[in-house]
């Protein structure tokens, strides 16, 4: 059964090859949707297997409950992104004057990107995980630069440079971790996560501290923690919207996943307290840094990107608290944020295309131009800012509760205030876009059925997790949290 892990790597690869074949844009679309549907189903199957058998292991590949949560995210997001791309990219190619070749390139890279993200989640070795993470950067860099206009190139350049520098630091940290492993007399399986996790307590405290400074800052660059987040708004705003959704929802989650795997190793070590403090500080700082950009912002996609910075801050903060409850909240938050934020990016894609601008001030009167879309936008903004009865509220509440329960009362209070400030910014710009008189040329906003389906699906999922967490999901989250933090 474990060989299905190979399958899940093969399917995107095959799809990537297959999208180069058809001769019409329709064919490319269909092939891609079929491919991503198969991939998502396969992922679903893996998740099912993990839920029944605990974990899957095959050579260097390994998947447990922690992976399964993130695989769920990838499965949902890659599918919705494919759906959305289907109607979005077609129109986009017309407005951006690109040809079929570009479309093929897009889908090729898209699938490779998905492949790299999946591989991050199912490799067992921390070194290979690093390789996979770097691969995600490279695969997505060309997607960010897809339009090859000045802004896109600039964004991609910064994206690759900053992330690669960051990731080099992570490599440094990983090497130090390996050194710690060797010093603790745990040779043999170099950087094997399972080995390290079993023997986390043996690792040298000083070494752990040193290694984790680099690991957290390195992967933190990829997560988009302030002040290493600088690439994030650029890349997310310049990529085609489905890719922005994937970057924000899936890729950032993958990066967090890697940090979680690393944390799982040291939870028993003496250096863990420092790691926690570092995570909490970076988390709160990220929320804080995001606020000015959320309060004064002109570009709708950058707004969303900064909101991602904020949410990554929330998740990191929760990880820093380091109790089972807080990690549970963090995991749930990752799930909710991924789905809601990707839907928001899809929405932003529709808006920027229909209004032909990314300027928030020029996007007006959505409720008049397309009421259903306006309603979804409002709901999505309420979701992402953590208003009940949606999932994000629930996970934020759990995180806050965990913060208070763990005795971080002041940090919890600061957290609450920061989150409220974010709310003010997001809602303000949401109202700007929803109401008013649409500009003369834009009286009707059209949107394809698949795109609409992608957004409605996302909203539905987050709405459900807010009111009701199904038992199996609850258990899976608990087990995943136990993997990260024990207990």
């Amino acid at each position, binding site marked *: 059964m474990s060989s299905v892990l190979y399958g899940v790597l093969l399917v995107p690869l095959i799809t990537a090859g297959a999208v180069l074949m058809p001769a019409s844009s329709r064919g490319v679309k269909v092939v891609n949707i079929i491919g991503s549907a198969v991939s998502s189903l396969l992922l679903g199957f893996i998740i099912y297997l993990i839920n029944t058998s605990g974990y899957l292991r095959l050579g260097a590949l390994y998947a447990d409950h922690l992976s399964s949560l993130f695989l769920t995210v990838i499965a949902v997001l890659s599918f919705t992104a494919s759906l959305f791309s289907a109607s979005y990219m077609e129109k986009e190619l017309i407005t951006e004057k690109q040809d079929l070749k570009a479309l093929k390139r897009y889908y090729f890279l898209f699938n490779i990107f998905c492949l790299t993200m999946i591989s991050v989640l199912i490799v067992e070795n921390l070194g290979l995980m690093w390789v996979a993470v770097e691969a995600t950067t490279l695969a997505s860099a060309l997607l960010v630069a897809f339009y090859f206009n000045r802004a896109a190139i600039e964004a991609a350049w910064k994206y690759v440079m900053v992330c690669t520098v960051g990731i080099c630091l992570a490599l440094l940290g990983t090497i130090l971790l390996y050194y710690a492993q060797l010093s603790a007399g745990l040779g043999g399986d170099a950087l094997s996560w399972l080995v390290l996790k079993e023997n986390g307590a043996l690792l040298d405290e000083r070494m752990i501290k040193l290694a984790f400074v680099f690991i957290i800052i390195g992967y933190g660059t990829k997560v988009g923690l302030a002040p290493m987040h600088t690439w994030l708004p650029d890349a997310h705003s310049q990529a085609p919207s489905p890719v922005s959704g994937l970057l924000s929802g899936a890729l950032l989650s993958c990066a967090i996943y890697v940090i979680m795997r690393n944390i799982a190793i040291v939870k028993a070590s003496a250096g863990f307290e420092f790691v926690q403090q570092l995570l909490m500080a970076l988390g709160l700082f990220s929320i804080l840094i995001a606020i000015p950009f959320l309060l004064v912002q002109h570009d709708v996609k950058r707004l969303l990107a900064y909101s991602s910075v904020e949410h990554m801050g929330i998740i990191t903060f929760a990880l820093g608290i380091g109790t089972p409850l807080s990690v549970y909240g963090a995991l749930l938050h990752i799930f909710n944020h991924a789905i809601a934020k990707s839907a928001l990016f899809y929405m932003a894609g529709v808006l920027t295309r229909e209004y032909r601008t990314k300027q928030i001030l020029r996007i007006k009167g959505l409720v008049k131009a397309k009421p259903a879309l306006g309603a979804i936008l409002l709901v999505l903004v309420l979701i992402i800012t953590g208003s009940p009865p949606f999932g994000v509220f629930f996970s934020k509440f759990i995180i806050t509760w965990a913060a208070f329960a763990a005795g971080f009362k002041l940090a919890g209070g600061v957290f609450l205030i920061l*989150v409220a400030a974010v709310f003010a910014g997001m809602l303000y710009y949401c109202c700007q876009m929803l109401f008013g008189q649409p500009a003369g040329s834009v009286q009707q906003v059209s949107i394809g059925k698949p795109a609409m389906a992608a957004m409605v699906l996302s909203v539905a999922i987050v709405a459900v997790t807010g009111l009701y967490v199904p038992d199996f999901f609850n258990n899976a989250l608990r087990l995943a949290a136990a993997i990260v933090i024990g207990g």
Partner: protein
Amino acid sequence: MNAANMYLGALVAMCVGAVLAVILRKNDSLVNYVAHGMALGGSIMAVLCAIFVFTQGGISLPLFEWGQVGVVTARLDFLAAFFLLIVGVIGSLASVYAIGYCREFYRHRLWLMATCFNGFLLAMILVFTVSHVAAFLVAWEVMTIFSFGLVIHKWEKVAVRRAAYIYMVMTHVGTAFIVAAFLILATSAGSLAFEDLRHANLAGPTASIVFLLALIGFGTKAGMIPVHVWLPLAHPAAPSHVSALMSGVMIKSAVYGLSRFLLEFLGTGPAWWGGLIMVLAIISCVLGVLYALMENDIKKLLAYSSVENVGIIFLGIGAGLVFMAKGMPLPAGLAWAAAWFHTLNHAVFKSLLFLGAGAIVQKNHTNDMEKLGGLIKKMPRTALAFIIGSLAISAFPPINGFVSEWLTFQTLFQLSHGIAGIGGKVTGAVFIALLGLTGALAAACFVKAFGITFLAKPRSEQAENAGEVSPLMIVPMLMLSALCVAIGLWPQVVLNMLNATLSQYWGTATAVIFDYQQLGLVLNTGMTDSVMGISTVTGMVLAGLIAAVLLAKLGAKPREQVVETWTCGITPTARMEYTATGFSKPVRTAFSAILRPQRHKVISTNANSYYGRSLEYRLNINYVLHDKLYYPVNNGILRAAKFLRRLQSGHLQLYIGYVLAVTVVALIWSSR
């Protein structure tokens, strides 16, 4: 037929109402009747539920199990039932009113409004009943979201959008404080259930922090000064039946929350808690009513008056805390009873007034009192309802406002025993005087509101052509008026309920506070002697009326001549009438230190100088808190944000420098 059934019935009815409104959205009149009918049904069930609780005792029913946070229960104790009663009574009458009122909104997103209306009522019922931190917060925020939906309903207007935005943001910030307060408690108690929070046993300073957090959080929702800013914006922006609910019921959810916190969760705290609340409360009273008096927008006037009344309610709560700190259950019970009684009263008369204002606005298409006038002849029934509401809110006997204000006065009078030495007397006297000032200002305010709106000649064409509103709107208003008078004449019914509620916290100790003798209501606090012979006084007033009529008939039957009002020989027109602005002028001048009025004279000379000049005179007052607190803070934040945006300067080198810098900092930190 028991409380649980009624409770669940109410929830289901409103859910169904909300869903049906969406499903039927193509047919406006169907939506109107069905959705508001369901809301009416649900509200009536809520009232019945409350009555069952008061007659058969409280119940507690588990609702559902919710993942990581545990079982959510609804606890219907007397306190919950009392607020449920308020939401039920006001909700049902507002629903009936809405059927008539909402015809205006046909072809104007009525279904959305009806959905939000049902959802809003549902959320309020949940807020008052759920007994679990997470569920309470969800209900609390959902209440905000639905009311946001209602406030922003006329989103074509910029002012409405701004109001809704400010409302949402302020409430959200307030909620953050409430969350913090709850979580500190919950952490200490180790549970999220309300039943367990009372075992939190916080240390002194922590308890004080929780108290302050709760006060800020709930104070924001209540519209207490200085966090009232959203209230005068949001209430006028909403459709009137919603304003009635928001002002009448929603802001009371804060009173409910504070009651739970202060009576159940926190236990007895130091006396300065009460002192702080009282000081903020009296500021809310005086400033609120001053701003109300200055206002010419009838709905804004009512909104500011809500700030004032929240102040009166909080005055009771604050005094209650002082007495609790001093270990005096009887006056404390009296204080809380006064606060709750005023909560109910304010709900009744403020919704009545908002409904009346809605009728006025619907027929005249303006909120500006300067464009109204003479409506008593065009809309006599609305006028009747409005005058009763005005009398009630000005606390004149024998209408309900007087009873609760009298109780509040009595509470303040007890302060001389609550606080030792001469300080108690002086404090009590000053608070009594300021509350009296508030009362007088409120009376002036409503003389203005009623007089300018309903009396004299119409000041505009719309007012000239106004007519009476539909009976569906009249009936709820008259029922509320009747309720005002009934509660005023027979306060015993309400006081019995309050006594039951008090017994939840003090057992039988407070059972003797209220005593009904032949003379009227006697208070037994064991300290002072207080009697309110409201029925006797009413009888005397009636006797006086009879005497007056007899006196007037004493002489020969005189003739009556109809002659125009004397205006120094000119034919009087509406433009010669005293204006709303003019009416409040003396107060504006006397309180200019607080109100800081500014006049702008705009003289525009016509191109043809023989036509003379047109003179425009504008007057506005400055809100101290806006000028000194909100604008500077807001601007400061935005300026700081603009400055900090330079962090993202576009320099790649700088970005990598950040990475390097944070690495160095973290390395130094790690080696510490």
